[in-house]
């Protein structure tokens, strides 16, 4: 009996050579425990050394290997061939980003947006190292912990219809990471992360919720956005209604 095999249709785009992205078919051995990334590595090593894509840890934590798999944003190190077999699999670069080459997208926009939310602890006064750690109870940790799990894989940006239409939108991951610091009991910098509450921040979000659905680390960016909306609105009302000194 012939060895079972599976066909992958993979985006090829080489700037200066291809006019536009095209799909190229590769038929690879089907193995029960292979993920899409294993199939891509098989293609690269044994069939076609010119295919380019990013990958590194192959265990779902470095965030490099996000691609569209049959139209859905996935980490390819966690997308098993068996879930698609015997059908064909379409592997494409993440949508909503410019393509650099083949399956490699340009994510520099996210890096700028990440920096704009000031994703670091801001203190009015730093405590000297010699005085030890800031105490933080397990409950205080739990209030922001899930938002620290973001691996910057960009699946949520690929899933977000608003980011597709409004490139200025800060987007799910950047907002979730900004919110993560706002919620951290050690942080005092919420009033400096104004970008989250601005026009290009949370108010662009129409609460489609796809970001939370595709997140491979079960972060809920939609919740971060909704909670930020409530808090921003509350602060705004307070600033109007409360007399000076109580804001």
């Amino acid at each position, binding site marked *: 009996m012939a060895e079972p095999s599976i066909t992958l249709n993979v985006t090829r785009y080489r700037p200066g050579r291809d006019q536009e992205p095209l799909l190229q078919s590769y038929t690879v051995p089907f193995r029960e425990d292979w993920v899409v990334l294993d199939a891509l590595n098989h293609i690269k090593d044994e069939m076609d*050394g010119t295919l*380019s894509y*990013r990958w590194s*840890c192959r*265990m779902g934590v*470095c965030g490099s290997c996000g691609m569209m798999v049959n139209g859905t944003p996935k980490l390819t190190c966690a997308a098993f061939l068996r879930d698609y077999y015997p059908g064909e699999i379409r592997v494409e670069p993440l949508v909503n980003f410019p393509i650099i080459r083949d399956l490699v997208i340009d994510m520099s926009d996210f890096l700028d947006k990440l920096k704009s939310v*000031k994703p670091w602890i801001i203190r009015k006064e730093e405590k000297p190292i010699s005085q030890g750690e800031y105490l933080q109870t397990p409950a205080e940790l739990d209030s922001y912990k899930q938002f620290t799990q*973001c691996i910057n894989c960009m699946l949520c940006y690929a899933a977000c219809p608003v980011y597709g239409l409004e490139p200025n939108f800060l987007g799910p991951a950047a907002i979730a990471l900004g919110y993560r*610091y706002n919620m951290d009991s050690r942080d005092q910098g919420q009033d400096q992360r104004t970008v989250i509450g601005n026009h290009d921040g949370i108010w662009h979000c129409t609460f489609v919720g796809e970001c939370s659905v595709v997140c491979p680390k079960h972060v809920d960016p939609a919740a971060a956005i909704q909670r930020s909306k409530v808090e921003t609105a509350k602060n705004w009302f307070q600033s109007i209604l409360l007399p000076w000194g109580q804001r």
Partner: protein
Amino acid sequence: MFTHDIVIVGGGGAGLRAAIAAAEVSNKLSIALVSKVYPMRSHTVSAEGGTAAVLREYDSLDLHAKDTIFGADFLADQDAVEAFVNEAPGELIQLEHWGCPWSRDPDGRVSCRSFGGMSVDRTLFAADKTGFHMLHALFQTSLKYDNIIRYDECFLTSLLVDNGKVRGVTSLNLYNGQVEVIAGKAVILCAGGGGRVFPFTTNAAINTGDGMAAAYRAGVALKDMEFVQYHPTGLPGTGILITEASRGEGGWLKNKDGYRFLQDYGLGPPTETPTHRKMELGPRDILSRCHMQELAKGRTFDGPYGHYVHLDLRHLGEEVINKKLPFVRELASKYVGIDPVYEPIPVRPVVHYMMGGISTDINAKTALDGLYAAGETACVSLNGANRLGSNSLTELLVFGTRAGRAAATAIATTSAPASGTLEALASDEQRRLNRQFLQKSAGKERIATLRQEMQKAMEVGAGIYRDEQSMKQACDTLRTLRERFKDIIIEDQVSTFNTELTAALELDFMLDVAETIANSALKRKESRGSHTRTDFPKRDDENFLKHTLAFCSPDGPRIDYAPVTITRWQPEERKY
């Protein structure tokens, strides 16, 4: 040509920490952070279990030092160990101040857990994604320093050395395929380890020893390269790491008869709850050897990916597993279809870490003027012949900081590099890449084939148990592969994001690293720490209480030796 004060290669834990340390010396310093991946993709991200420092009243610096030196089988430089344990607590508190989400005790203090070879609970953790959280905290914190300028996805190809001084690096910009000069008065290599020279490893794809090989080619010694750590608990097939914290929390290793076999190797007696330094909390080198002994006795399981034993966490219960080991549950469920709440996890030893690396002094400085190194790329030597789990994340911070500060201080008196010379050196480098890879007419050797043959040679010749004949064979095979590498095929001629070219450059680096490992191992005729020879089963302090130094020569590595620094702990038999 881009000019900075300091050029750091590698954006993992050590590189980011060095960058921040240098940036804090002066905001006038311009610091380049060059990495072949975005920094948050670096392999620090995969570290799971924790990071060690003395932060509790029941602990002491001397005890941490002693555990480390004992674990290292007395090959660690004790002055480096003392500096390390001294500075470790401050570094971890600093990271706490920078927002690392450490797991907490009910009173709000950072929690500590047990780890292999450590006498007390001194390993801080953020669930079982400690490296991930440390890396992201460092990366996000680094964004606030405007004088850290990143070169993301720029691939190191060589060090620029002019007149005996390091003057920067050449790097291949993946976006346009150009070889660019990134010049500086000092270079800090933090480019990680090279576990990918072996076929079965926990290491990420990017761990190809680039920094080690670049320093080696520039004439710097690689120290103690024969010491390669096998982690006893990797998933069969993929080699994905199942953290030592699963044993720190109380997990058991069992053979196919359901028997906690470590008690047969002097690590007993078995206890219900974990005992420091005993049984499953023994050091990694010893546990990996025990596994191989069980294999020889026919007491391991046999699966599609070879031998394995069981890591049993069931008695810990779902709540502890979810709270302390959620990533272990996720990885086991996803990659081997086992839920550790209900079933034991299949595990086997897997290449995990290189104790060896670029030889540096206690301030992370190498023998080459202007060159520094820190992290797994470097060998200070803190880890000697066997590293204790949870010391390496702390090492990134302590020696990353030392490197950043030392470089920032030293360059105050260094003149700027002459641009003409550097551009000429860069043109040479571009021509080399064109000649060797991009514009060659033909070739018949596939990258993947040579890589697989190298990895096989390393597994057979430089694995857990070694002997003269298999190591010699590995050395010969690697020489032949070096010749065959000249006839490599590169099909991809496109300049944008040419990952076939980078795969070739990585293989080129790995062949150098592999040769230093095999040749250093062949010459060390004793067993110490992770280096275990069936033909020389005893430690031999008389002849081999010394560091191996491998220097680059046209005929392969030239081996020399250097003394070990002993301060307060005289060598004794290493027994747990």
